[in-house]
Every structure is written in structure tokens, then in C-alpha cells.
């Protein structure tokens, strides 16, 4: 379900992409929680999701878990790439 797409952390580019397209909440959040430690400290995870609940729940999860929500970017085919930086 996930594939690394590069290692360029200087630009905040994701080092891991979690494909949660078509999955309903809480599954995208569960996948994020399970895999965020797969990137190094300061690394960025991109969650691809199209459940509207994920759009608000990923930033809320980041706040609760003290990670950083960097931004959410619309995908051409619908849904968003929601970027999260691992802080600890």
C-alpha cells in the first residue's frame, strides 16, 4: 500500500507515500500511525486519501500526536496528498 518516492528532505518532499485512496476513516489514520516511524526523524509522509474525514482528521491527529501537518494538496484525480512531518 505504500512506496517510498524519494529521499529529498530539504524541500520537505515526502520520503514515504501512504496510498489510502478509497479507504474510509479511520483506516487512513491507522495507516499513518502505523507507518510514520518508517521515515527518519524530520522525514515527511504523504497520505493520499479521498475520504473527506481524512482531510480534517490527519491535521487533527498531527496536533494530538505532536507531529506537523505541512499542507494538503488536491490530487488531479480527486482527494488530497496530506503531508506530515515526523517530529519524534
Amino acid at each position, binding site marked *: 500500500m505504500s512506496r517510498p518516492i524519494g529521499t529529498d528532505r530539504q524541500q520537505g518532499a515526502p520520503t514515504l507515500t501512504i496510498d489510502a485512496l478509497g479507504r*474510509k*476513516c*479511520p*483506516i487512513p*489514520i*491507522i495507516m499513518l*500511525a*502505523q507507518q510514520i516511524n518508517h521515515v527518519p526523524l524530520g522525514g515527511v509522509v504523504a497520505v493520499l486519501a479521498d*475520504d*473527506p*474525514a481524512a482531510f*480534517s*482528521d490527519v*491535521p*487533527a*491527529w498531527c*496536533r*494530538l500526536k505532536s507531529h506537523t501537518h505541512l499542507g494538503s494538496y488536491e490530487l488531479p484525480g480527486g482527494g488530497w496528498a496530506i503531508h506530515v512531518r515526523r517530529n519524534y
Partner: protein
Amino acid sequence: MAYFDAASSEPLHPRAREALLAALDAGWADPARLYGEARRARMLLDRARADVADVLGVRPDELVFTSSGTQAIHLGVLGALAARRRAGRHLVTGAVEHSAVLHAAQAHEADGGTVTTVGVSRTGRVDAAAFAAAVAEPGTALACLQTANHEVGTLQPVEEAARACAAAGVPLLVDAAQTLGRLPVPPGWSLLTGSAHKWGGPAGVGVLVIRKGTRWRSPLPEDERERGRVPGFENVPAVVAAAAALRARAEEAEEENRRASALVDRIRELVPRLIPDVEVVGDPVDRAPHIVTFSCLYVAGEALLTELDKAGFAISSGSSCTASTLRPSHVLEAMGVITHGNVRVSLPRGVSAADVDRFLQVLPPLVRRIREEAGVMS
């Protein structure tokens, strides 16, 4: 079954039940006619109106009965906008209002009007300064604000909003659906709406109060019922029962609020201690006495409600999987809090501490099991 969904509908108050049964026999005739049965129905309707007006501290001729709280809001919003068309077409609302307000606002926009939706804090409280600034914009016809939020219980800054509206010469519609019969209505509004089944009356009765001097014009075709403000034959027995319930609730309010509020405090305190990864949302202090909402991370709201139902708890949720629209609650979204795994506990009149204790016992292992089944390790 422990019923914890009073914010959706309060069970019928025993005094309302008595009044309803009596009025079914005594108040069935057309209150607009002149014969004896009709005069009796008219008298029952007038007495109910006087009773409700007395509890709300308004004049009976300012108050009409609608067929629901939603209809009261639609008529209040659209009728005030219609009457103020020359003043402007700008409507101000809070972001976490009941969907009836937001849908009326959409209808206004579709009709060429403009709408400012004022955001809320993390606790769901409308930003009073932003609300005042929006109201002061030229061409503002109406502002709308609820007394308390129906999903998280947070009280809204109604008095501050009313002062801003008075300064700008803009009428304020206050949706008091969650607090009538529980809390006094803050002063300063021009239109007030409520719903009888939220205070222990029967469904099918709403109230719309339009203060003397407030301009209002029906957005619907002309009809002579309810001072020309609400179309259709009055449901006199239900109105009589609604008035009896409101009177009873107002008398019991102090005791019921104390009981419910202490139990809400208990839930607010214990749920995050008993369950890891829970966010309790809404204002802990400035809140309606009977509502508490929290979200359990990594849990599907639908699974949680189904399990709670099996365990004997009737509870609702703002999670998208429990909504017919499959969208998360606009309230939780606007607050920026977790929307999945959401549970809204709203305590009815007479709720027992034993039921709340059992809920606090049942919930933690249930959440743990659902998380384990989803492959989440705590």
C-alpha cells in the same frame, strides 16, 4: 436501555403525556371556527401560547407555533431576510449552527444574497470579534447564532453578539433548541427559535418568537393561521403537551442541570483516563449541562455505536460513517478536531448515575477490542 441521546430528542415528559391525552379529546376541533368545540380548541391553544410565552419571558402575541424547530428556523431566517431586503442582502451565521440555519443560508445565497460564516475556536465557540465585524458590514440584513452547540454543547457568545447587532441595527436570530427548558435565554435577540421534542414535548411542534418591532414577512404563500406567520392547521393537542413539558422542565431545570452537569464532568474527567488516545471536545465549563462529546482515535464511529447499542446504550455520533451524507459533522470539521470514532453523550431528564457508571465500565474494553480488530496496538 440507557438513553443518552437527549440532544436528538428528549423522551416525552410525563406531564406532556398527560396533557396530550387530555387534549386529544378536548382540542381536536378547528380553533378558527366559532362553535363550542372550536372555542375550546382555541382556548387550549391560547393558554398554551401564554404558558410558553411566560416561561420564555415574551409576549404571547410575539410567539407562534410551527411544525418543527427546523421550520421555525427556516421561517425566521427567510422571513427576516425578506423583510429587510431594502436594508441589504448580507446574512451572518456561525460555522457550527444547526443544518437548518446553514441550509436556509444556502437558499439565500442561491437567491442572490451573500453569507458570511464566522469560524469557531477549537472548543466550538464562535469568534465574537469576527462575528461583530461581519455584522457591522454595510448591507447586513440578519445575523444568526445558537445558544449552545447541539453536537459538543459549547455555549455561544450570544450576549456579545446581541450587543454587536444592536450597535449595527441588525436583528439577531437565536436558535435556542438545545437550551430551552434548561437554561434562561440570553437577552438582546430579535427572533428566537426552539423545538418542543428537545425539551420533552412531542415531535411536530416548534416555536418562533418575533419581538415587537422586528420586521418580518412570510417567505411562504399567504395563510391566516398563527397570525399569518405559519401556514397550516394547528396541532393543538401537541402544542398543549409541549407547553406542559416546557413548564415542567423550567421548574425542574435547576435540579436536572445539576445532576446532568455533574455526570458530564465525570465523563469528561474519566474517559481520557480510562481510554488511551481519546480527545474530549467542546468547552469544559461554558457548556450546556447535558452534552459531552469525545473522539476515540483509530475507531470507526459506526462500529462503536453498534457495540454500544448491543450493550444497551442509545448514543449518537458525528462521524461520517454514521451520517446519511457520509460526510463528517460540519461542527467537528469547523473545530478542527478528530471526526472519526466520535461519540456524543447527551443526558436526558432523570438520567441515573448508575447508567453513567456502567457506560464508563463498558466503554474502555469495547474501544480496546475494536482497535485490536483493526490491528491497532495501544
